[in-house]
């Protein structure tokens, strides 16, 4: 790869705090940039100030703030701005977090710029001057290495793909406003309403290092699941059965049609391990399963399986984790 800048779309909450995977993306961007500058792109009306200390520690050279006279939440408007920036900076690589919104942006940019796209990458390398993305596919059962053969590459990266680390030397990122030429296409879609989901106080499901998941076996009582999640400092997830039953919000659903997670530790309680669910969690680092049925398919992929009742095993584990933590 030539030493062109790398762009990173800075995913952030409405209050301007960066979402945790962004630090991982910036770390990854530096490793493949090979000395070329890493630039952040800020879309939306939130104040960039809360993010600047993190961006400085990450060695970001500049932050391009997209300013548009159209709704900045529309993926088409973000794509308008990013398309302009790819041209203006000559960047050969744009990294985005693997969210549904990012994938929309990437799809639009791919069509508009002819760029190659890899979604849900769990690593990125430069081999013989070519960008190579690592990706786990088919419900976590296969690993692939995929080269991007176009001059511009768009890669969405899964949370927890790499450990985040600060740059050897911090920077003072310049914040530059970029007036976006909003395309006619973008103006045809109207965002009638957008409601941000309130933060739960627990880590974000998509990027948490620990995720504790409850399934049908909870019979609607998620308290043991929440208890263990809190003891481990993790997020709470659910199977589709649990969300369909209304035991927990739909946004907690893990699986092929829900959130994809790859935490360091996944604990499934009362979860059978149906293939639709496995697709969203099988790439997790360590898998623990607690299930009353010794024949549950989840035991086939569990590093640590307990045949037992979640209502006794989980509270005991949570209490012991707290006790061991207190001991230091």
């Amino acid at each position, binding site marked *: 790869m030539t030493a062109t800048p790398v762009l990173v779309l800075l995913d952030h909450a409405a209050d301007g705090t960066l979402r945790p995977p962004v630090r991982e993306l910036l770390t990854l961007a530096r490793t493949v940039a090979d000395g070329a500058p890493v630039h952040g792109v800020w879309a939306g009306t939130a104040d960039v100030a809360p993010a600047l200390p993190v961006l400085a520690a990450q060695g970001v050279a500049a932050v391009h703030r997209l300013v548009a006279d159209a709704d900045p939440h529309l993926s088409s408007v973000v794509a308008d701005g990013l398309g302009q920036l790819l041209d203006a900076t000559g960047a050969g690589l744009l990294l985005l977090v693997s969210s*549904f919104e990012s994938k929309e942006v990437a*799809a639009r940019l791919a*069509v508009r710029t002819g760029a190659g796209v890899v979604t849900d990458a769990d690593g990125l390398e430069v081999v013989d001057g070519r960008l190579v993305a690592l990706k786990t596919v088919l419900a976590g059962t296969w690993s692939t290495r995929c*080269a991007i053969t176009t001059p511009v590459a768009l890669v969405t990266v899964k949370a927890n793909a790499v450990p985040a680390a600060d740059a050897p030397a911090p920077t003072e990122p310049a914040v530059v406003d970029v007036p976006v030429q909003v395309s006619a296409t973008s103006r045809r879609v109207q*965002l*009638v309403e957008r*409601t941000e989901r309130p933060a739960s106080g627990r880590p974000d499901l998509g990027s948490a290092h620990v995720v504790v998941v409850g399934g049908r076996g909870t019979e609607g009582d998620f308290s043991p699941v929440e208890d263990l999640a809190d003891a481990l400092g993790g997020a709470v997830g659910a199977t589709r059965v649990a969300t369909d039953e209304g035991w927990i919000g739909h*946004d907690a659903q893990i699986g092929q049609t829900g959130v994809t997670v790859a935490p360091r530790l996944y604990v499934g309680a009362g979860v059978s391990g149906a293939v639709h669910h496995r697709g969203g969690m099988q790439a997790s680092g360590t898998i623990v399963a607690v299930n009353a049925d010794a024949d549950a398919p989840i035991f086939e992929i569990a590093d640590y399986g307990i045949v037992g009742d979640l209502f006794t095993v989980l509270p005991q584990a949570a209490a012991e984790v707290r006790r061991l933590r207190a001991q230091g």
Partner: protein
Amino acid sequence: MRIVVCVKFVPDIQSDRQLGPDGRVVRDLGDGTLNELDENAVEAALTLAEEHDGEVVVLTVGPDDAVDAVRKGLQMGAAQAVHVLDDDVAGSDAIGTATVLAAAVRHLHAAEPVDLVVTGMAGLDGLTSLLPTALGELLDLPSLPLAARLTVDPAAGTVTVERQLDHASETLTAPLPAVVSVTDQANAPRYPNFKGIMAAKKKPVTTLTLADLGVDPATVGTAGARTQVLAAAPRPPREDRVLVQDTGDAGTRLAAWLVEQKLV
């Protein structure tokens, strides 16, 4: 109202799915099926067609077997099916597939105006979710992905979707024609009944080639792919696995194990 539904033929996710030496999903293991999530797309289209006196055309791009995917759509109630079948399509990535589908939609639109294009939220083989948005871009139509609810106002000529994203829920609206993808929350797909299965046998399946659609083969398939799989391997099985029967202290032992693994 004329609705085109794009559907995909994929290996059954319950089967042992594999990648070939070229890094592509092996599609000839004989256990292919209509992508489960596209059943929601067909259902959404049929429901709208019933409400607004319309007609549904199912469209697929894929090898010989892929005709089974559109046949299932016909059995569910679609009136017409189109199968783009061409060796040069093999190896297409999401953008390549979208290019062929876009050409096919234009072809259909030229014959009789298309008001809406509906797709599933993702293919359960590649799971990129790129196609619906790419298709909208290629057709220069508004695309409204991930509809958990979908309504059309024929008088105003608009489509409105409600969708759940990772951190927010949104309502989007756009003028028709437009491209919409629906999630599995959108509806419960109907099962083809005996009458539907018999009727489907009489319905036409039109087969088209890239030449019919005026698509340059160099822009799709392996030739047009913007990514190249260098290596593909099944992930090694997990090692040192532990399975314990709870005899009263499994929770305590689990906590100790987590500490030992440095996960706490």
